[in-house]
């Protein structure tokens, strides 16, 4: 006689597991702008189906709650209903025996607090405050609103130069973004409902690399208006490019030797080769804007002078000052902020770490760049010390995995305590304290040190990558409003107290992504043009190939391949390999074309000009 058996899933359960995966993908790609009250009711419905039925609050209460929320939609609810919903949810939370009931109630409470307006709008006016305004997810998610389905269709048709021209209508940094964009466009890609998002960035890279030389668009008639751009990074160059196209005379003032900002002085060459960057900047310069390098605005007088000489000014300083950890010994020799190291590399001074033990402090993308750069500079060992868990790192997952492949050791839950120096004042080790993840606040657990367990990591170099600030003092003196060191510009990139002065990019947002900096430049270009009294429109005469019928059967996403670790760590050359023609054809063919199928054909499928 058998006494116990192995648990095996039956077919129904296996199918349910599959369905869970489907719904997980669906939720992860849900379009913003859905009715939050509707979603609250829908989530509650799922929760109800999970109740085991033993306890009253969960078995009966959740059903009653759902009925109450439904009454909000049906029009029979009054404002008192909201109070009853709240009391019922609180009671279920307090009395449910297990998390199935209490957490369901907590979700309802969270919603009531987060979107009470919406409940009230439904009750008082029988309508929702939510608006569907994002018919094509990739276009909307891209901060510059690039016509993604349009250029994917062009890539599929083999019209790469047209694809590049179409992208440049909204984003002049096609090559740069083809390599290093964080691709928010992929985050809500509707293809995720079928299998996985389209590899949009990879296809952009493919288009750029197969387009040949694509010159800048023709400039419009000269206006005689002069615009100063302070800072030649992605945001400043975007402004310079579009305003030059619109016929304005632009001068870019760059404090360093070369243009590019963080693209040159922050992003390592193995991710963005310098020749690619130079070629891209050369194309932008075809529009004729002037450049003054090694020009730093070092006093408010200079700023005043600039304001006199130009009709409008755009401030795009970037965020180039390294933050410190604030621990003892940070002043030791051998301790270097990551921004400083990358700045040196940008100007051609690559550090020699041969045989040295390098420790990187931080968990963001810059920390990963620093660690992987250290590996390529010959370091004997590279260790990343991060105080939270690996999962909590703000660096992109593929960067963390890539660093590990490169041989970087990641010590998570490891907080730096002190940098020990030798007699010459040189760093010799980093004292760290193991951490325990504590209470979750703002989505991440607060780490807490474990007393008496400090460890010493012997090392020769320490690279600090714990954030960057803006060098904005001069502008503050001039009278530009600052917000904790950042330039306080509004979402039109205007500075309210200073007519004619605009700002955008990292110096406004703090360290962010290149695509957000470009978007700020695009917004500023349009608004500066308006400020100067014009209404130039940027458009491109590329016809989009007709969208054919499609079946959309599930098909694997083509991922980008990397050169093997042992090979790529030997040099600073580009580590990512481009797609093959066959891969690009298949991948571009996966696009669901939300510009034609679905809401896109009704509202806002294509933004032809801006």
């Amino acid at each position, binding site marked *: 006689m058998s006494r116990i058996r192995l648990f095996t899933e039956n077919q129904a359960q296996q199918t349910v597991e599959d369905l869970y995966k489907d719904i997980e993908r669906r939720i992860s790609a849900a379009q913003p702008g859905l*009715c939050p009250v509707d979603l609250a009711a829908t989530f509650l419905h799922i929760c109800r189906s999970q109740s085991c039925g033993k306890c009253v609050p969960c078995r009966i209460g959740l059903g009653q709650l759902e009925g109450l929320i439904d009454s909000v939609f049906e029009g029979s609810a009054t404002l008192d209903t909201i109070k009853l919903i709240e009391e019922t949810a609180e009671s279920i939370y307090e009395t449910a025996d297990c998390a199935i009931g209490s957490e369901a109630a907590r979700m309802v409470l969270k919603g009531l607090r987060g979107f009470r307006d919406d409940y009230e709008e439904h009750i008082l006016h*029988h*309508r929702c405050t939510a608006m569907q305004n994002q018919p094509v997810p990739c276009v909307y998610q891209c901060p510059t609103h690039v016509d993604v389905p349009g250029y994917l269709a062009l890539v599929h048709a083999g019209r790469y130069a047209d694809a590049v021209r179409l992208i440049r209508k909204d984003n002049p940094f096609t090559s740069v973004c083809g390599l290093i964009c964080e691709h928010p466009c992929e985050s809500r890609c509707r293809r995720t409902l079928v299998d996985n998002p389209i590899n949009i960035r990879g296809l952009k890279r493919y288009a750029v690399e197969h387009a040949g030389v694509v010159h800048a668009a023709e400039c419009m008639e000269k206006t005689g208006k002069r615009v100063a751009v302070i800072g030649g990074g992605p945001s400043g160059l975007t402004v310079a490019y579009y305003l030059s196209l619109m016929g304005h005379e632009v001068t870019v003032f760059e404090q360093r030797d070369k243009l590019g900002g963080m693209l040159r002085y922050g992003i390592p060459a193995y991710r963005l080769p310098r020749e690619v960057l130079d070629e891209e900047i050369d194309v932008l310069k075809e529009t004729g804007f002037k450049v003054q390098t090694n020009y730093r605005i070092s006093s408010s007088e200079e700023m005043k002078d600039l304001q006199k000489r130009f009709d409008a000014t755009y401030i795009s300083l970037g965020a180039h000052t390294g933050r410190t950890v604030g621990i003892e010994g940070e002043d030791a020799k051998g301790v270097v902020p990551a921004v400083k190291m990358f700045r040196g590399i940008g100007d051609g001074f690559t550090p020699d770490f041969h045989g040295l033990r390098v420790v990187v402090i931080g968990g963001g993308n810059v920390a990963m760049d620093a660690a992987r750069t250290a590996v390529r500079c010959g370091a004997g060992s590279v260790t990343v010390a991060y105080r939270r868990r690996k999962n909590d790192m703000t660096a992109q997952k593929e960067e963390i995995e890539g660093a590990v492949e490169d041989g970087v050791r990641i010590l998570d839950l490891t907080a730096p305590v002190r940098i020990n120096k030798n007699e010459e004042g040189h760093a010799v080790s980093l004292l760290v304290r193991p951490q325990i993840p504590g209470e979750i606040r703002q989505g991440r657990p607060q780490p807490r040190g474990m007393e008496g367990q400090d460890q010493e990591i012997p090392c020769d170099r320490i690279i600090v990558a714990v954030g960057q600030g803006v060098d904005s003092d001069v502008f503050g003196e001039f009278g530009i409003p600052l917000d904790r060191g950042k330039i306080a510009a509004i979402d039109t990139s205007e500075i309210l107290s200073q007519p004619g002065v605009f700002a955008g990019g990292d110096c406004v947002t703090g360290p962010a992504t290149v695509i957000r900096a470009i978007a700020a430049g695009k917004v500023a270009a349009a608004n500066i043009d308006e400020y100067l009294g014009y209404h130039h429109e940027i458009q491109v005469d590329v016809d989009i190939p*007709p969208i054919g019928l499609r079946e959309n059967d599930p098909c694997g996403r083509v991922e980008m391949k990397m050169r093997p670790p042992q090979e790529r760590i030997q040099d600073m050359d580009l580590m990512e390999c481009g797609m093959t023609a066959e891969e690009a054809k298949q991948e571009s063919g996966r696009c669901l074309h939300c510009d034609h199928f679905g809401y896109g054909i009704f509202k806002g499928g294509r933004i032809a000009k801006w």
Partner: protein
Amino acid sequence: MVNVTIDGRQVQVPEGTTILDAAGKAGVRIPTLCYWKGLNEIGACRVCVVEVEGYHKLFAACNNKVQEGMVVHTNSPRARRDRRLNVEMILSEHEGDCATCVRSGNCSLQKVANDLNITVQPYKKNAQKDKSDPRFPLIRDSGKCIKCMRCIQVCDRIQNACVWDVINTGSRVTVGVEHAYRLDQSDCTLCGQCITHCPVGALQERDDTERLMEAIQDPEKTVMLQIAPAVRTSWGEYFGMSREQATMERLCGVLKRIGVDYVFDTDFSADLTIMEEGSEFLKKWTEKSDELPLFTSCCPGWIRYCKSRWPAYVPHLSTAKSPQQMFGAVVKSYFAEILKEDPHRLFSASVMPCVAKKHECAIPAMNDACGDPDVDLALTTRELFRLIRSLNIDPLLIEEVLLDAPFAFGSGAGNIFGATGGVMEAAFRSAYFLATGGNPDPDAFRDVRGMDGWKEATFQILGKTLRVAVVNGLGNADRLLRAMDDGKVHYDFVEVMACPGGCVGGGGQPVHEQRFMAAERAPMLYARDQTDTLRFSHENPSIQAIYQDYLGEPLSELAEKLLHTDHESWHMPKEAWRPETVFG
């Protein structure tokens, strides 16, 4: 060219042709519901779905293009089943009380369902309940709306009024008013184009037919009714009458049978409008050219649009009342005197191709003749049809009767008021005379005819060049005003009609699925003008008589009182300076 096979028939069509059009060329009919060519090609109803060989999914025929070698089946088992189920789903959300619906017999959903032989409904009925305010001239019934989105498209893309929009999300999506909670609080111009584009009875005008019958049955009231120029082009359509059958005289006979005491022709007051507006223009042109351009003011939809969207141009609107309102004012003063009747006992009604006229006649300041509303009631052409039908009258069995003196007819110039460009042309025929003392060639101003949305012309009068523009459709009006505001165009006189094609395409006219009726109706007005012996407003003997006997001359004090109005006397809901609303 692309070769395709549709239901076994081979056909060759140009690249880029939709499956629907290719099927049409192959002689295969595919049912549609939400589709309106060129306006709404969004594939929302999924009624036109077809099976394409090689694909498991079905595709909307209205907005997908044919490809070389495509083999399409429109009546395969899957296509038939899916089309039927989609119509049944739409029916489950549709308040299908056909017997009490104004669109019964002229309803695209009813036709599609009947054509598909749908006799049972498998799904639970779940129609929305909202119905908009029944007092407003335009009424929307959510329960009937099938979310085809045509109203949104015509309001956005043709009229640029952007009143309708998609509201709510998910399965609760419906059509609602943008930037306001209620229609009467919105910028709605009451052009009525959403009604004439609605495939079902979700949108309709307020039905005022009973109010006319009450007046007719009231022994204290003398009922007069004026008939707008554009109504004569369309009133017989629903009866299936030919142009020769559907004459003004037959309509007069019908109205007399119903009990109307006096039937008049709005062409008369169109001529009167020309005298006043033409004189106003000449005065400004010669004396106060800084007050130009002058915009026509006969179209209440345009007035509403101008007031809510371009208030800075309100002072440029002609102060002349519309023909409807001039007629009302004349009837309750001049005509009352002729009749020796107390004007308070006169009931003045109109049949108009227009929904906004219901609002116009209810403007409180439009009471210049005797203190009562100058026009008591405005019916649309569609209401006229329903009224005649409700009285069991077959117009073909009614004899023709001449309209009543002294307003039995107008000039050919007054007649073409009903089409885009007509007001401008009529105005210049008389303005030329008033300025020079001699008549021009009546066809001298023909450049402003035709269905183009934005027409321009220059005319010479007294050696001076006049720049004029004619726009129809509020989207075109908006484009013109924007260009004018940007200093890109300069005109002396601008005619605006809110509805595409002018009043012949008015929002109160009979509804015909997917047909631009203005282009079919306008030639009837021009044909009459061409054969008319009277082609100038100032030569209309009734016009000459009213000035001689009563008004004196154009722009006289009495003419100003009765025939002109202050457009600032009332406000659109969202006009910035004073949030009051006129409830029609």
